[in-house]
């Protein structure tokens, strides 16, 4: 197996739509994910993220193109891929009437771990996620955050070299999501597992992922480290603190070639500048137009801003 855990080439999947039409859920997707990284697959709803996971696990047949996961062709060796992968898809796979310990014990038996190894691994995972003291409680009585931690533990139980997590923090409150994210980050780093993660949460992707892919309508729009993507926009974000910001001022800025976007956000003027734009010149323009400028902050766009800019660009 090469150092690429996932390799897709022109991966395409169509679904039949009403009226005899066809919907292309994944469109000519080519990407490579190296071993040991957390790969974040970002995209809006119905972008094709979950369909891609199903294709990579061999749960769906590609319409065209192909994929190799852990060195196995997903068309012919899907069982081998699934044996070596963990997955947390739409459903947690947990039995609500069973205790946390019994849930993991059950999956340990399903994965045919030896009894001693099974016990040690269950204790290791429950301890890592802070659930050991509550291992005897029925899962049905737990909070969503705790259940989700247990579901991730279930996916990691048999020490897979690759895990697929489909929106693992969806529906969790910020505190629970952060706790799960932290536990996950330390565990995958310690065990060297490659993670294929889909998420809507761009802050999460920025914190967790070493490699990010952005998908929309089945097409891969960008692929790279979050820093690369931010740099790739070539622009600079400027935030101006002050007074007298209004619609006329925003219109004035938007009319200038070096300004990619401008808006008033929480009483502050936020601009995206194109490569080579002069901040001093724009600040002077603002003052001449009647704005009172107290502070000008310059920085690179966040991943969220890059993502939103890509979505806007794609719509045009």
């Amino acid at each position: 197996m090469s150092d690429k855990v996932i390799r897709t080439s022109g991966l395409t999947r169509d679904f039949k739509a009403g009226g005899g039409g066809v919907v292309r859920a994944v469109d000519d997707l080519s990407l490579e994910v190296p071993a040991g990284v957390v790969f974040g697959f970002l995209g809006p709803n119905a972008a094709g993220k979950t369909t891609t996971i199903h294709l990579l696990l061999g749960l769906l047949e590609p319409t065209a193109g192909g994929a190799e996961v852990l060195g196995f062709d997903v068309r012919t060796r899907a069982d081998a891929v699934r044996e070596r992968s963990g997955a947390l898809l739409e459903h947690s796979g947990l039995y609500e009437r069973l205790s946390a310990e019994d849930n993991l014990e059950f999956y340990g038996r399903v994965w045919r771990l030896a009894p001693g190894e099974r016990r040690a691994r269950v204790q290791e995972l429950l301890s890592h996620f802070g659930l050991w003291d509550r291992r005897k409680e029925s899962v049905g009585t737990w909070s969503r955050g705790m259940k989700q931690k247990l579901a991730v533990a279930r996916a990691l139980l048999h020490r897979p070299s690759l895990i697929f997590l489909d929106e693992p923090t969806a529906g969790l409150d910020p505190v629970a999501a952060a706790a799960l994210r932290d536990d996950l980050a330390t565990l995958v780093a310690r065990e060297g597992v490659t993670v294929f993660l889909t998420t809507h949460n761009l802050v999460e992707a920025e914190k967790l992922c070493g490699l990010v892919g952005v998908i929309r309508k089945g097409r891969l729009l960008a692929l790279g480290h979050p820093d690369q993507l931010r740099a790739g926009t070539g622009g600079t974000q400027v935030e101006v603190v002050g007074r007298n910001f209004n619609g006329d001022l925003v219109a004035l800025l938007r009319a200038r070639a070096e300004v990619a976007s401008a808006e008033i956000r929480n009483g502050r003027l936020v601009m995206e500048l194109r490569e080579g734009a002069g901040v001093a010149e724009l600040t002077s323009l603002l003052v001449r137009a009647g704005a009172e400028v107290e502070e000008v902050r310059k920085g690179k766009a966040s991943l969220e801003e890059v993502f939103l800019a890509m979505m806007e660009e794609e719509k045009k």
Partner: protein
Amino acid sequence: MPDALADVWTVAWKEFKEFFAHGSGMRGGTLGVLLLMAVISIFLPLQAGKAWVQSPMLLMYWAWVPLLLVTVNITHGHGQLLLYSPPVAIGIVGLSLLGATLAASAGVLVSLRAATVKQAQQILSMAMMLVAIVPLLGLQALSKQWQGRLAQWIASAGLMRVVLTAMAVLAVLDALLLAAAMARFKRARLILD
């Protein structure tokens, strides 16, 4: 096959744990099972007496057979051990095993095509209802002459032959469904879905 048996044991372990899960106690399924046991294994044998070890109707209650035997012997034995007649005993063992295999094979096939557990349960329930209703409707659809011939055959053939014929039919169905289920079953898929 040993792997399949290990899986059967694992699922049985899980079902047992779920049934007697924390907190459900007597409030949940356990109380219901105890009530059912009381009705079928005590009340019905008391009502029927010795007929319960001789009647083919006993085949309908195969799961409760050991308890029925205890109750009938206590209440109607009078110092003599009451046992099942050979056709009934063979039917209890054979038909229950073949019937369970049929239900399990059908369950696997249905589960593979169903999107959710609930959908699988609904389809299987419908199939079970059809299995119970279709033969009855079929019998009613027969002309009086054919119904008479069938009744005559059952009476002349004897219970043993009827039981063996039913077992043969079930065995053929089992073989077909089991082969189809084993051909389509993908173990690795179970873990992820």
